[in-house]
């Protein structure tokens, strides 16, 4: 979307800054919004978080280095905003990172996705603990490398990897159950595992 420049600001540093922000930061609004929506689970809070993130981004845009990844920079601000909201309203369980890195991938089922509906996949995503969900969203949906996901969330890269591994495994688990309930996929395998 193109916006008209504000009155009398067609030239000068301010207008230039505005143009750069419009071109580099604002186009990420949909990425930021869907992530905020899936992390907070609430449209109003997602809108507030995205709006606040853009406002903070605008105020500190001078610190953004041109040529670096503006999407990652905006995501970092967004998660800062969300974590702040989260602290205040405390609706999300906080996970401990004491468990060691999983090898349990070996036994996790691999759902056949052809038969699953988008809504089922998203419902399984929404069931993940918030901290796992955030990492899965950043890496699998937004395609950030581990290192950038770690910077955005302010956590070590090893934590990104362990949350990602556990989040993906839970997702596969949920979806195998969903597939099994329709008589497809891994029922036999899953029952065999439980014995």
């Amino acid at each position: 979307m193109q916006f008209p420049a504000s009155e009398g600001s067609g030239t000068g540093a301010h207008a230039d800054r505005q143009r750069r922000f419009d071109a580099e930061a604002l186009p990420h609004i949909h990425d930021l919004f869907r992530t905020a929506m899936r992390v907070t689970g609430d449209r109003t809070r997602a809108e507030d978080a995205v709006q606040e993130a853009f406002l903070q981004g605008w105020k500190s845009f001078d610190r953004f280095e041109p040529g670096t990844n503006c999407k990652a920079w905006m995501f970092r601000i967004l998660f800062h905003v969300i974590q702040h909201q989260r602290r205040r309203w405390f609706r999300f369980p906080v996970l401990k990172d004491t468990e060691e890195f999983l090898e349990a991938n070996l036994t996790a089922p691999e759902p056949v996705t052809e038969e699953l509906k988008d809504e089922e996949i998203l419902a399984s995503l929404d069931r993940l603990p918030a901290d796992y969900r955030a990492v899965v969203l950043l890496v699998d949906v937004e395609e950030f490398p581990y290192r950038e996901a770690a910077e955005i969330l302010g956590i070590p890269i090893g934590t990104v990897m362990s949350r990602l591994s556990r989040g993906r495994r839970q997702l596969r688990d949920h979806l195998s159950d969903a597939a099994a309930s329709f008589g497809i996929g891994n029922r036999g395998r899953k029952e065999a595992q439980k014995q």
Partner: protein
Amino acid sequence: MSCHETLAILDQYLDRELGAAQMAAIETHLRSCDSCGETAARRTALRQRLRTAARSMAATPGLETRIHSQILAQHKPARNHFWLLIPVAAALLLTAGAWNHWQDGGFRTTPEAQRAFIASLAPEVAATMRVGLQQHIHCSVYQEVPSQFPTLEELARGLNSQGQDARLAELLPEMQSHLPAKFRIVDAHRCTFDQRLYLHVAATDGKRIISLLITGREEGEAFESDLRGVAAQAAGLPIYVAGVRRFQLAGFETPKHLVYLVSDLPAAENLAALRAMASEMARTIRNTET
């Protein structure tokens, strides 16, 4: 490379997060192993489905316009970025004089500096009182107050959705009804400091902050063991007090919990506030202990 080794780093392979040698080793294994190849294909398919499904959502129509006009309304870019960090409580104290403000913990804008300030006060109060003091400063003083105040019902719902014992939500009206004039509860959440979990209710009159903090009582923790005497009784329940700088504490205990009221009110007012609410609260908390 074995199937076991392959599956252990398959996700990193699919994410292209491995070094060249490992990438090549996995590729070789996948070409020759149907089972791992199938696993890789299914995971890739799932990831693509997830990406497509999640990306189908767009921002609420009108949000972009709203953001854009908010930005235009900013007129001038901010000169410095301290606004991100200065806690509201600290900002309000600026008029009282910078030196006093520093003495009271202001201007500490990094977590390290804030922790150092908390640590500097710790030796000035007894160990049981420290438990309440540190979290009041850590959480209430060094955080911004929310811009929109939720209702007690919304706060209770937020706590309940945290797996908090629903009976403890009764503490909110009990506290609100006994707060000094003009104070209202603006926040209720669970928070941690040094691995200790607190139920934290914060109230403000716009200038000062009152924290109610409830935490599990650990082995051997008792106010009477390290405080010299009981300051007051509320229907037979002993209440203990302590103070350091501008922070005043009053506390009581139940068999399983320590309860604190911490504020920058005068000591007598802080004590009176806790005394007014203590016996009701003690009953509510004890109900959850059996």
